[in-house]
């Protein structure tokens, strides 16, 4: 499965790119994060504290155990601070 992964705010700064395309067989967001963490330190650094991380699948807020089946776009970012 090909996924577009987007990063925002300090997650984007730690990963070093705003978006990238990855090939993965991960079934859930949590699995995807584990794959990325194993890949390079910058992912491990950005994703070390899951409680400080939020995720959206195809532009809807999701959970770490949400399935990725059918997803095209996954976004990772800190808790939002609008308003």
């Amino acid at each position, binding site marked *: 499965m090909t996924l577009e992964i*987007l990063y*925002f*705010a*300090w997650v*984007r700064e730690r990963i070093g790119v705003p978006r990238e395309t990855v090939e993965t067989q991960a079934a859930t967001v949590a699995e995807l994060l584990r794959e990325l963490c194993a890949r390079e330190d910058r992912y491990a650094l950005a994703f070390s504290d899951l409680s400080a991380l939020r995720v*959206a699948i195809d*532009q*809807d*807020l999701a959970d770490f155990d949400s399935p990725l089946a059918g997803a095209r776009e996954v*976004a990772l*970012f*800190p*808790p*939002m*601070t*609008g*308003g």
Partner: protein
Amino acid sequence: MDIRVQSAPFDYGQECAEFAQRSGNSGAIVSFCGIVRDHDDRSLTSMTIEHYPGMTERALGKIAAEAARRWSLNQCLIIHRYGPLRPGEQIMMVATASRHRSDAFAAADFLMDYLKSRAPFWKKEITHSGAEWVAAKDTDEDALKRW
């Protein structure tokens, strides 16, 4: 339901005037405006708001639709800026129009609570001592439990 996500400034007075103009059949209008504070002990020099194009509009639309489901609203406006902002500049506004005051107040308060922690915006503050992402507050999340 009027939702705008933009980097350009908006004219709060003009938006309030036009919103009121369109709301002759409502008894009550509530508007809220959020401003970058210009007097602060941390000596803020500027702020940058990052957002998630596409998801932002979608999230605001869902929040507004939920407000319209919960309260009797004749109209609802959300404007939220992104990009660089200077102290004193207006960040965002919401406005609600309803037959009764209680609906307009509750809906505006609800919109603010939700867009604060459910719409994909992130604020970065630039002060004399550096740049820092604004941390979400536990109270922001707690505020959602009111509804």
